[in-house]
């Protein structure tokens, strides 16, 4: 966590998926940056994302030396707002994940920290 991304984790604590948008030109930067690469503005606001998106890529993360580690599914999610996030996909198996599958955000405590994570919604994209 840094000065540039604290807002994201504070938002997560409140159950909101916040993205950093440039106060001058509206450009959304993720991961957040201290200067807008589009207009070089230094003032940022936040926009609350809808939490809906689609799966772009995925894998199963297990400890390399612990065969019994159940693992977590790590996904790249393309949000409706045109931003890509790294997250986890819950309540599914690795071979049930498909490219473009619609997903929705959920907020879950992991190791004492609220993380935005996702579930497949089963909607048609």
């Amino acid at each position, binding site marked *: *966590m840094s000065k540039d*991304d604290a807002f*994201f*984790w504070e938002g*997560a604590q409140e159950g909101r998926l916040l993205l950093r948008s440039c106060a001058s030109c509206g450009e959304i930067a*993720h*991961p957040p940056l201290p200067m807008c690469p589009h207009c070089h503005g230094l003032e940022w606001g936040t926009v609350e994302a809808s939490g809906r998106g689609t799966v*772009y*890529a*995925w*894998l*199963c*993360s*297990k*400890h*390399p*030396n612990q*065969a019994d580690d159940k*693992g*977590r599914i*790590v996904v*790249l999610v393309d949000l409706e707002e045109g931003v*890509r*996030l*790294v*997250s*986890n996909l819950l309540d599914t198996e*690795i*071979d049930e994940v498909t*490219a473009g599958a619609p997903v929705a955000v959920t907020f879950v405590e*992991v*190791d*004492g*920290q609220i*993380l935005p994570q996702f579930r497949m919604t089963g909607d048609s994209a």
Partner: protein
Amino acid sequence: MSKISDTAIVGIGQTEFSKNSGRSELQLAAEASLAAIQDAGLTPDDIDGMVTFTLDSNDELDLMRTLGMTELNWTARGPFGGGASAATIQLAAAAVASGAAKAVLVYRAFNERSGRRFGQPDPNGYTSTAAGPDFHFSYGLDTPAKIYSLWYQRYLLKYGVTNEDLGRYVVTARAHAATNPAAWYYGKPITLEDHQTSRWIVEPVLRLLDCCQESDGGVAMVVTSADRARDLAQPGVRVAAATQSHRKGGLIMFDYYREDLSEFEETRTMTERLWADSGLTQNDIDVAMIYENFSPVVFLTLEGHGFCKRGEAKDFIKDGHIGLSGSLPVNTNGGLLGEGYIHGMNNILEGVRQVRGTAANQIKDAKHVLVSASRSGMILGPL
């Protein structure tokens, strides 16, 4: 004014590659460096520049003291880990071409297996609450295998590349290692079945045998002017071109935030510069040394350099093009999967040996070797 192509690699040196060197990283650096300097027919007093990685733990002055050097006038370090391994030669060659240094020692040495292993989650815990949350580590991306696989999976998905396709590269690399006495896997070729029955490290992308060999060891090279190279002990190997390419929106390791992850954009743009600077093209390349921390990198890099079309590396490899008797022998030392992972630097040494004509798996009449680390690369050739 002289250019990068007016410089040459004149000395190479290395330690053995092992799983437990039993000595300090500084000793590995010193042994490899002295071997490279002596290979060139020089002494440590002839060296006035040093280049390594930002990640190398060996301080320049410590190495200077150890080698007994008198004066150092140039230092530089390349960022990005292995992706910039080839950039070390660009930094050294640029110093020589500009006159900032006369002879530059390039080194990389570590106990990457017996010490801190890159392939294991950090024991200090990236995900600990003390460090605070993070966009990547907090979600379980805690090893390079996982971090990189999240891009590779998109490539596999887009072009229908299977883990078995990856295995065909690994079988080839291990065949090359099997006849290279310096390789960790010397005398140990594998079959595709061996690959397919090795355990998943990152499902559905990487199995155990898709991963490079974490190793202890040191390698070093000496770069000086092409003119001076003619008077030295070994046939000089010209740095015909050396460059890097980093692109807007890119990130190191966590490079997920550009639109299309199914290609190495940097490799494509770097290639344009390499051809322009050297006057060569794909058809002039006799051997390609390709950085592969994990097997999919070879596929994406071959395509990025234009040796085959996007998505067709699996067919290029299946058709035997990258074997020792193929149209483009790749990683003739066994690569980082088969020879050892010295952060990509051992692949440059193999490029030098191929041009000298002294490789264990020598390709007949090899004249031009491409050494690529995806976002940094060079072409080596005769003086």
